[in-house]
């Protein structure tokens, strides 16, 4: 799947928290339409911060977020879906109402909304679970609900902040496959934050490796293996080679960071 025109770009973004932590410095990122880009880096490299800035949940201290279309994400239709590390569901209501939430907040007409919710639940394989409460579901199923909720507005951009980090490996592999299917079926764009080399290689068309303190882009890798990817890709020599290259890049990013820390000390 070839990447198209730029959808959103971060230009020279700095983010300094009131505590004085420099989370991002001179951060540049182009997200192109239809691509699956991963932000990979050690913890504390500002990858989640970058995601929150794209979502408009956090304001950059300097620099700009440029959307290709004049419509910014906070107005009108929601162009962004966000999946947190935790499922972040409302425990007091059932799965259907959880997925309905974004449409309800947007004031959607009830009938149209219902059809969309059913479709989103169907897409993540939870068609029959609308009346279940979150705590009655397994961790993997809760994450599916969270993904369905992000998809229900049919977002142009899906932002995912280490969504599968807390899941067991079997569940994670399954959700990786499902996520790729959804991404291809919906022709959406995904920015995926992870600290797993293997997950990023399996999923992404492009990996942005980040270095920490301050958070910045260290290098980029194109993972130009064809989609659809499946179990065969996971066990292929290509996959192993991509993983090795990505691991090396990540190791270099961390070495640079340590040297910088050593120099500063």
């Amino acid at each position, binding site marked *: 799947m070839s990447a198209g025109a730029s959808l959103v770009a971060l230009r020279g973004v700095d983010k300094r928290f009131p505590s004085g932590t420099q989370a991002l410095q001179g951060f540049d990122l182009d997200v192109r339409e239809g691509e699956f880009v991963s932000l990979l880096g050690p913890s504390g490299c500002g990858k989640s911060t970058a995601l*929150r800035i794209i*979502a*408009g*949940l956090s304001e950059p201290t300097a620099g700009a977020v440029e959307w290709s279309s004049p419509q910014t994400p*906070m*107005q009108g239709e*929601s162009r*962004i879906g*966000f999946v*947190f590390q*935790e499922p*972040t569901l*409302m*425990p*007091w*209501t059932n799965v259907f109402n959880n997925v309905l*939430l*974004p449409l*309800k*907040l*947007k004031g959607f007409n009830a009938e149209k909304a219902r059809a969309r919710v059913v479709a989103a639940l169907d897409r993540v394989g939870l068609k029959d679970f609308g009346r279940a*409460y*979150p*705590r009655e579901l397994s961790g993997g199923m809760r994450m599916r609900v969270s993904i369905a909720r992000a998809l229900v*507005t049919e977002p142009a951009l899906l932002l995912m902040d280490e969504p599968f980090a807390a899941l067991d490996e079997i569940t994670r592999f399954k959700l990786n496959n499902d996520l790729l299917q959804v991404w291809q079926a919906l022709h959406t764009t995904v920015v995926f934050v992870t600290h797993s080399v293997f997950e990023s290689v399996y999923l992404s068309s492009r990996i942005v490796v980040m270095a920490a303190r301050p958070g910045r882009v260290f290098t980029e890798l194109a993972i130009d293996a064809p989609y659809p990817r499946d179990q065969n890709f996971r066990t292929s020599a290509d996959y192993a080679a991509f993983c090795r290259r990505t691991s090396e890049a990540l190791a270099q990013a961390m070495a640079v960071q340590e040297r910088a820390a050593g120099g500063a000390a």
Partner: protein
Amino acid sequence: MNRERTLRIALPIVVLALGLSLWQLVVRVGHIPPYVLPGPWLIAQTLWSDWALLFQSLIVTLATTIEGFLLAAVGGVGLAVLFNQSRIVEYSFYPYAVVLQVTPIVAIAPLLLIYLPQPLAVLACAWIVAFFPVLANTTLGLHSVDRNLADLFSLYGATRGQMLWNLKLPSALPYILGGLRIAGGLALIGAVVAEIAAGSAGAGSGLAYRIAESGYRLNIPRMFAALLLLSVAGIVIFYLLSLINYLALRRWHESALEQDR
């Protein structure tokens, strides 16, 4: 498992029966006059013979308690929501809510009785005692919203009203219900304290007044009978509120879930 349950119900009953028997025995054998300590049998008889009077008083006290409780629920939740919506209001008034809470109600009641008609003063006491736990708990609950959920709401452009109604109030519900459970018992205490402080007779006097009055007349069996009714009222209020708590939370909140492990 079933044996365990039987024991849990049977043992307190056995203890009660033993205690009452012992009490009756001591009174009988020691020839203790009823104006010093009446036996349980005499108290039961008094409850029966004075039922019309005591029941009327029970209704008066219960009505005050329920009104005080409802006003406390509305006032406590309402004020907490107001505080939550405006920091200026919160900073301006929260300290005074605390002052109202920490000043002993027994000390406030005589003052209220000077400025307000008696039924209103009694109601005000019940309200003052009961409203603070609702306010404090609701405030805590409104602040305990999952931050990611709050982010999600703002991502989808939720208005303040939507945020309050769809996120903050449901998040706070377990806290609110916890506050109400405390407030139920406290409203009864507030009503009792105020009735005793009021101390005036009349057709509309509550159970606490009956206790004070019986004390002056050395009608000790009636004191005990009225006390028994007050205890039962307190227990019923507590369990009713616990039931409401359970029914509202059983589907989702840890506190109300049955253990299946």
